[in-house]
């Protein structure tokens, strides 16, 4: 096994990890501010891929330019989902019930997509999906590089909003003590709706990059959700920056094991490492308590 093969696996892992981080960011954000496990995250990613497909194939809009339409649309969708489904959940059983409710949302989304698009596989295409550039002896696909940069940018924006703005402080205050936040004038329902809107809007970008790097059908989201949840757990529930690191760790580890040892063992090695990390750090790499205090 050559050093260049391992180096290529590491590069692939970092770039693909960025794509997974983009997909997981909304999941961890919504959990971080609302204690809601959004099982519909996979379905929302697939919905984002289909929206990009429609804009690209039927309206001729570039995949990245299309985000100017899909991100606001997903923000509105997130606000609607919060209002229609999540707001009704009582604080005491919010997390457990959220799994059932968001699973229903996933089924609804899958059903609608199946009716409209059928179940045949699709993939987003653009010139940069297959184009590469040559650097240090490696061919790097533009789509993965662009996806990684997009992930860094959007996760940076999310981090800034949540941890460096007045709105972000309101979000975290509402989470820690709803009554106290309301007493000082924070509109908790509004803050939560906006938070879910932001989380879902980021998912639109994740969906586009996912659709450009993978074939998908309306049910593809179910394959994603377990991996996204494992990323969020490894990162520490609610940690947005941690999701990026955890995603890169997961995919890089799997890619290197696949090249050095065997693809069969790649997933197992990752999950063993997840168990080891959680054994010593039960709150994940960047645990929830620390995250909320940032």
């Amino acid at each position: 096994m050559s050093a260049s093969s391992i180096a290529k696996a590491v590069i692939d892992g970092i770039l693909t990890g960025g794509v997974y981080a983009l997909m997981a960011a909304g999941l961890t954000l919504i959990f971080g501010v609302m204690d809601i496990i959004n099982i519909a995250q996979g379905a929302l990613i697939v919905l984002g891929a289909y929206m990009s497909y429609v804009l690209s194939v039927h309206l001729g809009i570039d995949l990245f330019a299309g985000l100017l339409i899909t991100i606001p649309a997903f923000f509105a969708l997130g606000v609607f989902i919060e209002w229609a489904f999540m707001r009704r959940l009582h604080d005491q059983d919010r997390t457990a019930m959220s799994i059932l409710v968001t699973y229903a949302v996933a089924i609804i989304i899958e059903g609608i997509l199946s009716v409209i698009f059928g179940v045949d596989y699709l993939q987003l295409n653009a010139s940069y999906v297959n184009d590469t550039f040559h650097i240090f002896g490696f061919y790097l696909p533009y789509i993965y590089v662009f996806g990684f940069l997009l992930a860094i940018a959007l996760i940076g924006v999310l981090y800034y909003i949540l941890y460096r703005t007045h709105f972000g402080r309101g979000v975290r205050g509402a989470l820690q003590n709803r009554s106290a936040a309301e007493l000082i004038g924070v509109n908790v329902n509004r803050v939560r709706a906006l938070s879910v809107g932001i989380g879902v809007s980021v998912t639109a970008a994740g969906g586009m990059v996912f659709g450009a790097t993978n074939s998908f059908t309306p049910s593809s989201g179910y394959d994603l959700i377990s991996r996204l949840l494992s990323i969020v757990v490894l990162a520490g529930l609610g940690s947005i920056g941690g999701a990026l690191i955890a995603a890169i760790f997961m995919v890089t580890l799997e890619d290197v094991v696949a090249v050095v040892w065997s693809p069969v063992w790649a997933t197992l090695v990752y999950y063993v490492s997840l168990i080891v990390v959680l054994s010593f750090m039960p709150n994940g790499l960047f645990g929830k308590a620390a995250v909320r205090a940032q």
Partner: protein
Amino acid sequence: MTRSSRRGWMLSAAAVAAIAALIAGCGGSSSGTSSASSSPSSSASATSSSASKSPVTIGTSLSLSGDFAADGQAFEKGYQLWANDINAAGGLMGHPVKLDIISDASSPAQVVTNYQKLISSDHDQLVFGPFSTLLTVPSSKVVNRYGYAFVEGAGGAPAAFGNGLKNIFDVSLPVIDNLIPFAHWLATLPASERPATAAVATSDDPFTQPQFPAAIKILQNAGIKIVYNKVFPAEVTDYTPIATAVASTKAEAFLLGSVDVPTVSAFIHTFIQQHYNPKAFIATAGPDQGAAFLKAIGGASNAEGVMVPNGWFPGYPNAASQKMVSEYVAKYGGTPSDVNADVAEAYSVGQIVAQAVNATHSLDNSKIIAYLHSGVTLSSVQGPVKFDSLGENGSAAAFAFQWQKGVLNQVLPVGATGSKPVVYPKPNWGS
């Protein structure tokens, strides 16, 4: 929980349930139980005697959602086409056929529950098989417990015949023979044209893995060096390192053990990105999915020269097959190239069961099982069917097909009826 919040939650939950049920009902493909029977037009054309008799209900579990949804829905179309045709011809022993189709969501656990329901609760007189070896293996055991004949079209891997069951019959090509024509063709190429090296990567799946040992042996005996041979799990986070590792070997032939379009698509996209173009490329499944395959890989120009093994293709020179393809296009639209092998495999199941019922003049499953084991040669849209002691179709012929200018053509065996010249070496991607 306050009364108002509880009321709000209950209303919300009820709304979710109602919408989900509505969507499932509209789609007919997401979940739950759906029943299907022959179309009104075909029923109307059935003989008056069949219309007056009670229907024969045939149950089947299909993957109408989940990983195998595309294949499952193609199977549903194949079963429906057969049901329409048999009803138009007067039904089974004069009884109209009614299909009882329920979705297993591609789940090996759900498929077992479904067949228990079809037999013990719905009291269907006959059952047809599901899609894939993965679902056929667990379901065959429960069907056997009830003594039902289990004729299926997509469970041809050795795992389906390893339980000593006498009720299972696969009408399609045994998958263990799938890659033999391709391997023989490569091995018999003139030495100057024959690939010096080959790479093999296969999904950890009962359908794909059994296809490779015999093919690899043929290649090695011909002096072709296997420079990469690895198995990857069914669910892969990132195909890039595996495909990149294959590309780095610069193998002149590549054999991919795939079960679906996404796997082939991921390898092709990575090969394009890594500027790797093998002289010969065959994938065990995916390229046979017609338009869905072309859409996923970025068009026909990327498919040129890609091969797939199978026992049937839309241009198969068989009168019944051509009639079925015409009916498919008339009913579902598209072109003959859009009709994938799943449709023919499902249609064949119906044909074989109908011939057994007519020959035994009975819906008695024990008589049907005995008849199918009698060594009789039957006919299907995929060609002759003759079951061996295990229930495999020993008469099925193995072919290989190749995408050529947007059409999937039969190319192997060389010189066989209907075979066109192989495009070799494979043109560069996008050309």
